[in-house]
């Protein structure tokens, strides 16, 4: 539950990721969505899954083109799709850094050192909460309870969780991330789409 997520659609372009910023869903994405639609009594119910596919297809955030495409494929208005998308904090409307650090500062984590971790990260990265480093490597956010309180302080980075983080060991988290080529906002969306589909590739259908 990213707290700094802007609730407006900003038509920015992003050179950091190699995903398209415009154009339509790939034929693979359309096939995935068609399969997911069969899980529900109507197309509209596939809205959240379609937005997850969009987040993956358009490089880790939802562009105006992505909204248009979801609306077209589900037969809904763009206003409705945008209205739904902006309710949820995990859909991004601005490009995020390659490693999106989401630090839980909720009750338990806040009591066992989360604010010290945030402060240390701000120092090390040279940015404030809600900002991205100029090289596009890291975005730092504060989030609400990630429900792994036994391991506080907890940081989520895309599909990875880091537990028992302290201001003294948080540097190791950064080091580990620097070695990874993963673009975490995209890989998180990709993992979620895979979870929605049963094992095995969906049958590719011609558009």
């Amino acid at each position: 539950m990213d707290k700094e997520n802007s609730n407006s659609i900003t038509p920015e372009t992003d050179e950091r990721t190699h995903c398209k910023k415009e154009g339509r869903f790939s034929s693979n994405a359309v096939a995935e969505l068609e399969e997911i639609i069969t899980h529900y009594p109507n197309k509209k119910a596939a809205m959240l899954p379609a937005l997850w596919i969009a987040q993956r297809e358009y490089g880790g955030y939802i562009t105006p083109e992505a909204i248009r495409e979801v609306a077209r494929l589900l037969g809904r208005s763009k206003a409705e799709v945008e209205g739904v998308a902006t309710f949820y904090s995990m859909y991004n409307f601005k490009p995020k850094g390659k490693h999106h650090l989401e630090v839980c500062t909720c009750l338990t984590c806040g009591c066992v050192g989360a604010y010290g971790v945030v402060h240390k990260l701000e120092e090390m990265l040279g940015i404030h909460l809600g900002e991205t480093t100029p090289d596009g490597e890291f975005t730092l956010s504060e989030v609400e309870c990630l429900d792994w309180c036994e391991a506080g302080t907890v940081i989520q980075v895309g599909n990875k969780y880091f537990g028992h983080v302290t201001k003294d060991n948080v540097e190791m988290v950064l080091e580990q991330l620097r070695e990874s080529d993963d673009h975490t906002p995209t890989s998180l969306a990709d993992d979620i789409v895979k979870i929605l589909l049963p094992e095995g590739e969906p049958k590719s259908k011609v558009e």
Partner: protein
Amino acid sequence: MAELKLLLKYRDVPGIENIDVWESCGGYEGLKKALTMERSAVIDEMKISAVRGRGGAGFPAWIKWSGVLKHTDAPHYLICNGDEGEPGTFKDRELMLKLAHQLVEGMIIAAYATNTDKGYVYIRGEFVEPAKSVRKAIDQAYAKGYLGRGILGREDFNFDLYIHMGAGSYECGEETALMSSLMGERGQPRLKFPHGALPVDAGVWESPTLINNVETYSCAPHILRNGGAWYASMGTERSKGTKIISVSGHVKKPGNYEIELGTPLMEMLDLAGGVIGGKLKAIIPGGSSVPILPAEKCVGVNMDYESCQAAGTMLGSGGFMVFNEKTDIVILMRRTAEFYAHESCGKCTPCREGTRWMFKILDRIVSGAGQPSDIDLLLNVCDQIDGRSYCPLGDAAAWPIRAGIKNFREEFEYWITHKKSPIGDDCVPPVPYRINPALIPLS
């Protein structure tokens, strides 16, 4: 009464996420037994067990189950609420991550009992690893014939189970908001009984819908395997069975513990190794939404629905948060209010506006600008939200703040008079504006 492992019994068995290992531990026997019984007899077994909803409200599970079965004219839907988001609660996370087959088996039993052929596991978007486990369990269950058409040779029993991932919203843990989200809408609540229909009569797509928590479904395989009477032999007179308690905060061994309902609260604390970093100051026994208990009121309270209520708090979802003497209750309450202000869905005015006002007032106090009238103003805002909001999120925002003031009023007064923490500079959570001025919007 003490630690009693039932749902967590097989948590540490190597490979328990695989169907073969789960079967070797007695897995899917409950389902096989259920399929030899009439649908209504399965519900009777749930009734005898007296298991209550483990999501927080504690509503008897069997009433929902029988409410769905009685409808014969529309398709039924089954939903598992895996949108665990309550601060301090992390039991569903572990149940899905390690014991996904237990959940899937429980859902198949519920589907049979309620004559339902389609179900969804709604999992919060952040839970990627737990959701992967559920995905694997569903795929394995299909391969073994526990899901799909003609389950275990029963021509009259088909059940398809799908996963629906959330996308970051605490509000979607509320059952009617979850249903909105499942139908592809903003996660906002629907009108509740008696003003609106019950989910069991008209839930998703206006069809009879059974919605239970992960832990509730996970009880079903054990109840069917061993009988409702066996389950009801555990716990207290009105709180039967076991409950998973997620212990976190200033304790030696935080984690999930399964206890027999009725276990003394202080024994729960001992199980988790006791308080660290100083003396015990307070405990929140059931997640951030329930009233905080100061240390002196913890003695004599038992971990069951009735005893917690008598002590002025609730068992809730079992998020047991322990705070030592270094904890500044005013800053803790400010953080709680910040959470609810952020997570309010914005549908109704008392909650949307009230939660923000509570945060602003508490923020003013810890920034050193509190006024003597602020305490009564906060209580007034609590009264304006409690019982007046569209869904329980508003109540859940008001209760902790009211209890914080009731039990620790002198700390609020100290803050307002001295403009600093009564605990000192090393209090936790730290004074926000000292750590990072950019964190607080002072308006």
